[in-house]
């Protein structure tokens, strides 16, 4: 099948925003459908590398936490998110401990990683 989820979402988003919304009778519905188109476009931009981003992020979290390199429990987004949440909780504890110990290099390294993670996850619109 050549039609990817990404392409399908993008086409539906375009259709809602450009073709359906202008013909709706009330401003409220028109605006809602235009926004629905934008939501689908964001989802389309997000879906292709969603698993790759999470796998990479989880590896970086394990590394900064000093955990052994390991595979994620699965490649479904829900499984990757579950593991990501677990690792993030450990990182929050480690971050708080670094602050309490006034360990400036450790604190800086954690903030730098968090910034890197945030930028990697930025929505592409």
């Amino acid at each position: 099948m050549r039609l990817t989820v990404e392409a399908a979402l993008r086409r539906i988003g375009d259709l809602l925003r450009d073709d359906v919304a202008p013909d709706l009778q009330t401003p409220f519905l028109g605006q809602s459908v235009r926004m629905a188109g934008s939501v689908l476009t964001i989802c389309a931009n997000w879906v292709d590398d969603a698993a790759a981003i999470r796998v990479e992020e989880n590896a970086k979290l394990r590394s900064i936490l000093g955990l052994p390199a390991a595979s994620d429990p699965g490649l479904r987004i829900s499984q990757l998110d579950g593991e990501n949440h677990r690792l993030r909780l450990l990182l929050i504890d480690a971050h708080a401990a670094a602050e309490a110990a006034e360990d400036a290099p450790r604190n800086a390294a954690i903030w730098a990683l968090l910034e890197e993670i945030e930028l990697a996850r930025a929505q592409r619109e």
Partner: protein
Amino acid sequence: MSDLEARITAWLAHRIPGASGIVVDGLARIYGGSSQETYRLRGCWSERGEAVEKRLILRRDAPAGLVLAERDLEYNVYRALAGQGIPAPEAHFLELDPAWLGRPFFIMDLMPGKPGNPFGADPYEGHDESVARQFWAVLGRLAALDHRKLGLTSLRGGEAGSGFWRLELDRWEGIIDAGEAVIEPIVRGAIRWLRRNPPAEPAKPAIVHGDYRSGNFLFTADGRISAILDWEMCHIGDPLEDAAWGIDPFWPITRHLPLEAGLAEWQAASGIQADRRSLDWWRLFSAVKACAIWTTAEAALASGESHEMVVALSGIRAGHFHRKTILALLREFGEMA
């Protein structure tokens, strides 16, 4: 007549027993108001031999939204602020019984003017500086009011004399705890910073709007702010909380007037000297609070409680913006390299 118009007509007949010939028409949902559903309508009736025609706004609880609105809070605030120098609509009726329209609602006057789109190129149509000066002056007048004299002690913080920062931070951290599916260490780091570096106590407890920003007030064609709207997050606290929310980079009033000039307006109207270190604290708090609101939006959408597209877009897009804002502020404050 739509079904909703018919139900409002029946409710008005119940609510105003002396009214006859009640007609409700022109009902249209207004875009925005993502924590409550907002409708414009016209109501006509006869009462004691007089013809009454009112252009009205009906605000009905949404099944779920961006914020956790308390049912009668906004109505009570509008009533309390009448005649206090704060531009706001007159609120007429409150109905808590969901039997009438499915959910509680209240009705107030439709005010002249329109909201500026904070994301638009020219939101105030050439009146930017004047609108921004009024924005700060109104906020200053709000800070100068005595909430006890206005009967607003039942608002959150209304009986507290101090510790408003902790009250608010605890509240919004709790909302994040309840709504977050994947925890955000940036937000948690910001919360720890806020707890380690508390602000000074405010000069006086003030009525805090809670969502005082571009987009939540109306302005007229001649550049006058005609109404401050959306008071559902109103509480009592540090007046700098609203000032910080208004300059948040997502909807900054500082686009239209530099901060120093705005604070001068605010200080003149409030009689309070702004503590800049405390303002910085509330700026970071604002970014955390915004993250909490976007978290709530995402959770409402994920659970199916909300079908509102503005909630969807906010939940998806704005969280990232405010986590970046947190990082920028922590860098500004010297916490990050």
